[in-house]
């Protein structure tokens, strides 16, 4: 058991943090959107990134699976490391990286295919087409995503027929099927109703046992409920980073305090 307060002992894998950024700057063309961000995320924790919209937290999250690569004029300085390795090095395989680093998006975005095919997709693109292997992986992933009881009888149904909350859990299942060790979540519950949100939150809590999770959220209470560590972004800078409890009860920076107490946002 971890101690409730005080310095939580960071679990570090082989001497390095699971996710790490060193003096990262990001530009869109001439516009600087992230400024000198340095941050370390230990293994099997939930880290929440909070801040007002447009503060760069989503951009920062997308650095870890290189989703920003598709943005025109995107440019990055500094290092992004996963498990101690620079993921932007020349010979890095983006596809391999994304099998390790899964992502769940803001709006549920299932493929316009059956539930089964949604979850099997990540394996199929790796060339796995054996039905038994796929069946097992699909069942296991959907169970992990706490969706199995609701969909087990109609896996052939089109995923778009599910409710928003179910769709989002399906997207999580789809991500789990590839067996990543890290899951990035970009405001995963912002488009959902309170009940679905609660389900997603408890799911995140469960998944922490086996995965390192980074969640972007604009909902501070959510950050407080689910995360071990919290980073506060403001105008492209990481203003403060620390244990969630400390950030919420005893922020060191005035801006963090103002944001937490709802003076802007």
């Amino acid at each position, binding site marked *: 058991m971890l101690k409730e307060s005080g310095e939580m002992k960071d679990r570090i894998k082989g001497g390095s943090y699971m996710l790490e950024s060193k003096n990262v700057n990001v530009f869109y063309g001439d516009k600087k959107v992230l400024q000198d961000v340095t941050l370390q995320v230990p293994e099997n924790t939930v880290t929440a990134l909070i801040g007002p919209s447009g503060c760069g937290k989503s951009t920062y999250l997308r650095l870890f*699976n290189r989703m920003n690569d598709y943005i025109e004029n995107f440019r990055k300085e500094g290092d992004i490391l996963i498990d101690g390795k620079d993921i932007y090095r020349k010979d890095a395989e983006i596809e391999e990286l*994304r099998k390790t680093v899964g992502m769940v*998006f803001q709006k549920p975005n299932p493929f316009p295919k059956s539930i089964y095919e949604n979850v099997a997709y990540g394996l199929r*693109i790796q060339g796995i087409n054996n039905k038994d292997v796929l069946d097992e992986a699909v069942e296991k992933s959907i169970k992990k995503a706490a969706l199995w009881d609701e969909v087990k009888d109609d896996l052939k149904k089109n995923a778009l027929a599910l409710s928003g909350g179910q769709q989002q859990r399906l997207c999580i299942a789809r991500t789990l099927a590839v067996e990543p060790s890290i899951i990035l979540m970009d405001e995963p519950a912002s488009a959902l109703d309170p009940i679905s949100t609660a389900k997603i939150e408890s799911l995140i809590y469960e998944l922490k046992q086996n995965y390192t999770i980074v969640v972007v959220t604009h909902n501070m209470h959510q950050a407080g409920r689910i995360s071990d560590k919290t980073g506060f972004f403001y105008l492209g800078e990481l203003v403060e980073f620390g244990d969630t409890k400390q950030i919420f009860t005893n922020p060191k920076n005035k801006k963090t305090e103002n944001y937490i107490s709802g003076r802007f946002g």
Partner: protein
Amino acid sequence: MNNARVNRIKDVLFKYFGIVCTLSGLIILAIFILNILIDGVQRIDWSFMSSLPSRFPERAGILTAWTGTFWIFCLTAAIAIPIGVGAGVYLEEYSKKGWLANLLEINIANLAGVPSIIYGILGLEVFVRILGFGASLLAGSLTLALLILPIIIVATREAIRAVPKTIKEASFALGATKWQTISRQVLPASASSIITGIILALSRAVGETAPLIVVGALAYVPFVAKTPMDEFTVLPMQIFNWVSRPQHGFTINAAAAIIVLLCFVFLMIGIAVYIRNRAQKKNPW
């Protein structure tokens, strides 16, 4: 007050002008189809469909013409679909913004407006003479394929653009490569729109006459084409030939052949519209 009344009357009058315009287009189309039906429908029978051309109008048939049209349809589709869809995918998904992308875009917009007879001249020089295919089905199909390429490319691009970005992102985030994402997500999701565009493009190719005249399609072909290297005629060519003859019998033949051609063209358009409507109902976005 009086002025306002005049304005209101003008408004109503203009509305009726609009209705007349709209209906006149359709009425002309109707008159025109009716006219041809009256002229030609009793001429259509099995022997008309299965006879070779002849200099006697009563004995002449459209066997070589409709088989030629069928050949042209298949060959043109086989050539134009992969190239057109491929180019559309490239332009929408791969080409990076810059002078090359601009050039390609302006070029395609311009090609779409080049008169079809100019494509005939291109086909005559490149396919018939330089590549030595002669006035064959292959040369004709290649020419028509180039002609409809811009239509297919534009339809493909629009269809792909309509696929939500979030689907592509989800696929990439699961470790899919670009081509995996395109072939397994983007193309299936946009398939019905692309198919609609392809069918409309082919319906255009099937009705073309001018480029095939220039390429050297014949008016009189007394045999059914067996290979793509055979000489050929098509329904529009046959119609043109019969229209140009003074005898009344050939006019009737032309009307009958037009009925067959229009059935084919309208059937294709009907299928295209059906696919489009069905997809619109099904599409979640």
